[in-house]
């Protein structure tokens, strides 16, 4: 076993020193290669992480939301519907929800105001999300004025700032007592914004939805699965848009790699000629070229993936978060939960390393089979 291993070691040794001899060229190649891997890997990690986040949040969402439509627009739902819907077979629980949007002219953002029956909420107090606290520069115990429907300012004391862990959805959230929501928006008694429905058996949801529409033809049931599909589509669409933009970058990398890897300089040609005349076989030269390519690929791949990981999970993908998330002025500032997927890594590997290897294979073969005499003479 020793001699063949020794041979591999020597060739690898030679490959490394030959890479080092052309430091400038190879460093340029590795940095561009790393950059491409970094950008693609960041994108893949980021879209996956966002999808995972959305899935986890939706796990707590109601199975179905029922809205009432008037002239094609979302309208408040009469509370009388709650009992009727609760009586539908298969419905576990119906909750009337009261919420709305509040436009804050000072920082030009929309807040989501939501009623909560939580007993821990003190009278005239509110709970706010991290984004609200950040943009209004307020903290627990402060008072903030919210302009009511009639132009009057309503003062609320901030009892709590919601924890960061829920920031993706709670960033622009303001929680207050139902009576305060009604007073702020002049929301009529006996109506709710929409109904949240939980079913005992999710398999029954389409049947329940059909019965609700039959009972109240002006209602629109939205299933959790539909919301999930919308999410996936939105993230995929945005991710796809980025891929198109990045496509040109990848293409230029391939051209670059092709150029760098295929263009055997006269010097290299001569070197191969010398090696072969020293007794190297074609297979040895091929092995040498293979090691050179592998060292470059693996270095670039590992560095790129590590950088992308840090970028997405430690710096919240600051380079392209504006393109991929955000539905409000109040951008959530949250850290994605780090997770790596073997499948994603494999795909990335094949997307980046394989084209490079393929691009270098044929020229290596041609170089390896060159006649030493001709190579040295040229």
């Amino acid at each position: 076993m020793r001699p063949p291993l020794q041979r591999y070691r020597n060739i690898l040794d030679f490959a490394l020193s030959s890479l080092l001899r052309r430091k400038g060229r190879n460093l340029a190649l590795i940095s561009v290669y790393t950059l491409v891997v970094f950008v693609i890997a960041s994108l893949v990690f980021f879209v996956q992480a966002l999808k995972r986040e959305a899935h986890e949040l939706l796990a707590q969402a109601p199975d179905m939301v029922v809205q009432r439509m008037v002239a094609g627009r979302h309208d408040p739902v009469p509370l009388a519907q709650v009992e009727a819907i609760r009586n539908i077979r298969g419905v576990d629980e119906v909750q009337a929800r009261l919420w709305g949007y509040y436009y804050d002219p000072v920082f030009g953002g929309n807040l989501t105001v939501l009623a909560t029956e939580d007993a821990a909420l003190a009278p005239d107090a509110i709970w706010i999300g991290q984004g609200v606290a950040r943009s209004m520069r307020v903290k627990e115990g402060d008072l903030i004025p919210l302009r009511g429907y009639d132009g009057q300012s309503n003062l609320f004391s901030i009892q709590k700032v919601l924890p960061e862990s829920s920031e993706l959805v709670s960033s622009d959230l303001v929680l207050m007592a139902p009576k305060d929501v009604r007073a702020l928006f002049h929301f009529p008694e006996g109506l709710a914004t929409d109904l949240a429905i939980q079913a005992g058996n999710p398999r029954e949801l389409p049947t329940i939805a059909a019965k609700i529409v039959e009972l109240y033809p002006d209602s629109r049931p939205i299933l959790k699965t539909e919301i999930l599909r919308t999410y996936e589509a939105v993230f995929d669409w945005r991710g796809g848009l980025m891929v198109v933009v990045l496509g040109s970058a990848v293409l230029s990398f391939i051209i670059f790699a092709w150029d760098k890897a295929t263009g055997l300089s006269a010097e290299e040609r001569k070197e191969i000629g010398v090696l072969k005349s020293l007794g190297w076989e074609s297979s040895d030269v091929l092995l040498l070229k293979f090691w050179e390519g592998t060292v470059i690929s693996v270095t670039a791949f590992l560095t790129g993936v590590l950088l992308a990981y840090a970028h997405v999970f430690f710096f919240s993908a600051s380079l392209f978060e504006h393109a991929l998330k955000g539905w409000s002025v109040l951008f959530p500032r949250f850290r994605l939960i780090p997770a790596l997927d073997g499948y994603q890594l494999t795909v990335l590997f094949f997307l980046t390393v394989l084209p490079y290897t393929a691009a270098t294979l044929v020229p290596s073969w041609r170089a390896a089979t060159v006649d030493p005499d001709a190579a040295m003479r040229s």
Partner: protein
Amino acid sequence: MPSTRLFLSLLLASGLAATPSKPGAGAKGPVPKGNCAVCGMVVANFPDWAAVVTFRDGSQAWFDGPKDLFTYLLDLKRYAPKRAAADITSIQVKDYYALRPTDARKAFFVLGSDIMGPMGRELVPFGTEAGARDFLKDHHGKKVLGFAEINLGTLKDLE
């Protein structure tokens, strides 16, 4: 993306507005263990349909649906030669609407509906007769049967 915003608001409401959170669907009742005593399928993959027979010595036989449960009970000699019907202390199936375990001997089963179980056509179980009747209407069932009314002929109809 106004629609995304809307959806987010919809879902956040449930997560934060002190909605009593319920355990995930299918997670109610004891966790199914092992393979179906009749067909060998992994019962934990179909928690919504899981049925279980408990014997006097505490041992249990799990099934991936009421159909296999009855196949077992109606031919105990073949599937459990060492057991007798008298050894059985409880038989539980999952109520279709609530997905909670319910006593099979008092349950109602709907035959011929458009809802398929893990093994195709099923005897869909219900804790109440009213539930079974509603289901029969909604899902084009043919018959509501009590525990004692199910025999080998019924099972043959399901094949």
